[in-house]
């Protein structure tokens, strides 16, 4: 079966997951994003590529940052953006996901940017459009359940390439709640596809998926050990709702073992960069001294995210 993200010419027409995408497509997105980055520095921060196109931000789950950067990206491409907070509308009245999609398609939508708590929801939408033979509507996954957050993965790759120039000699550590993290999954797929020789995951056994080694990563439970000699540290948010279950004793306990403090960061290379997809919990997974320190590139990640999302939207919309 054809990868549902690609059209019959093998070009990216939806972005659903980084898994299964060839290196060439990932590189082409990063290169295109590089060109869009300079647009953000101009007097007029807009290009006319998606003029007259309607982009629907369908957020079935809240996310201020991701929704805002998608909105800015679409507006800088001159698209019209319609934000739908579905929590508060049709879904709560019982309308099915695909009925919502059909209705919005009838409003001449050109792109759906989808955030959903259920893994696979964007796939379902793309498959539905493919089955209907609708080729002019594109779907971009803005995070689905525990599955994938491909634009975050891509903006993380953009950030790493920006500071480290090249992927081929890097050691990258991803730290924290890997189990519930769609960002971790997208990052791991992207890093291995782009040829990073060593990807490490660091976390307590209760927050690491079983058999994660099969994704081509090295597993560490001791953070000081795992950070030794790394070039990039990607911290993940510890979702407070996880505390309620039996997965973790307490936030303080987690911070002691897996919070990124200056002394733990000192185990990494002197020029290592610190990343975080946000929103940060200071004093839970990251110390304020590190978050505000010279090695943190957390705010540049946000800026790069706009250019990366412009690249994804314009590439998919053009195919």
């Amino acid at each position, binding site marked *: 079966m054809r990868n549902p993200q690609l059209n019959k010419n093998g*070009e990216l027409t939806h972005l659903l997951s980084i898994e299964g995408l060839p290196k060439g497509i990932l590189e*082409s997105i990063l*290169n*295109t994003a*590089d*060109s*869009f*980055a*300079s*647009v953000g520095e*101009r*007097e*007029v921060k*807009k*290009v*006319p*590529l998606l003029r007259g196109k309607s982009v629907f931000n369908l957020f079935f789950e809240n996310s201020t940052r991701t929704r805002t950067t998608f909105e800015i990206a679409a507006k800088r491409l001159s698209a019209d953006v319609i934000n739908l907070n579905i929590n508060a509308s049709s879904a709560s009245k019982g309308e099915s996901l695909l009925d919502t999609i059909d209705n919005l398609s009838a409003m001449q939508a050109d792109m759906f940017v989808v955030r959903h708590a259920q893994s696979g929801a964007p796939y379902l939408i793309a498959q539905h459009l493919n089955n209907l033979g609708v080729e002019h509507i594109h779907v971009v996954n803005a995070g689905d359940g525990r599955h994938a957050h491909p634009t975050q993965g891509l903006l993380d790759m953009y950030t790493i390439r920006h500071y480290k120039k090249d992927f081929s000699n890097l050691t990258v550590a991803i730290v924290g709640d890997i189990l519930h993290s769609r960002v971790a999954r997208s990052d791991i797929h992207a890093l291995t596809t782009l040829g990073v020789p060593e990807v490490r995951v660091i976390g307590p056994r209760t927050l690491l998926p079983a058999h994660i080694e099969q994704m081509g990563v090295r597993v560490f439970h001791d953070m000081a050990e795992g950070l030794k000699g790394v070039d990039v540290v990607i911290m993940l948010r510890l979702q407070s709702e996880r505390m309620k279950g039996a997965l973790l004793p307490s936030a303080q306990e987690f911070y002691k073992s897996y919070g990124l403090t200056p002394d733990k960061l000192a185990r990494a290379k002197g020029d290592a960069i610190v990343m975080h997809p946000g929103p940060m919990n200071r004093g839970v997974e990251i110390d304020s001294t590190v978050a505000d320190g010279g090695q943190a590139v957390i705010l540049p990640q946000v800026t790069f995210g706009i250019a990366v999302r412009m690249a994804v939207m*314009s*590439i998919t*919309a*053009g*195919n």
Partner: protein
Amino acid sequence: MLIPDAEVLCESLRRQIAPVVSPATVMIGVHTGGAWIAAKLHRALGLTTPLGLLDISFYRDDFARVGLNPQVKKSAIPIDIENAEILLIDDVLYTGRTVRAAMNELFDYGRPKKIDLAVLVDRGGRELPVAARFTGETLILEAHQSLNLAQDASGQLSFQLVEKKDRT
């Protein structure tokens, strides 16, 4: 048909342009061929303002039909073009659509005082009301032909005549 010598035409453009350049002239090359020519002319004319580069991919009018150019490069206009006297450089002037896109893009950087256009070859076939102020050579090509500029390792420019298979 005799394929024009790109280096000879560059020299011809230099001679035409030399009398009109001023310290306020900002030279901007259109990616890819125009950028090569602009780099040569910028050096030969001893311009002191920085050289600009435009990749007009984000401004093309055929995005809906052909999608985004996967090789899109960064535009770099390293100078404030508000009130600048711009000399836009391209290799071949044909339909005029590239020049329209380049002008649209330039106006997103500011409001230039004026824009002049210099091209190595004007091949006719205009679809928009665009004309060059400086032209190396004018010749008529068939719709299925295209004149492609190439640069070798030593920086020498040359034209190649390419016959497209699907004649439209």
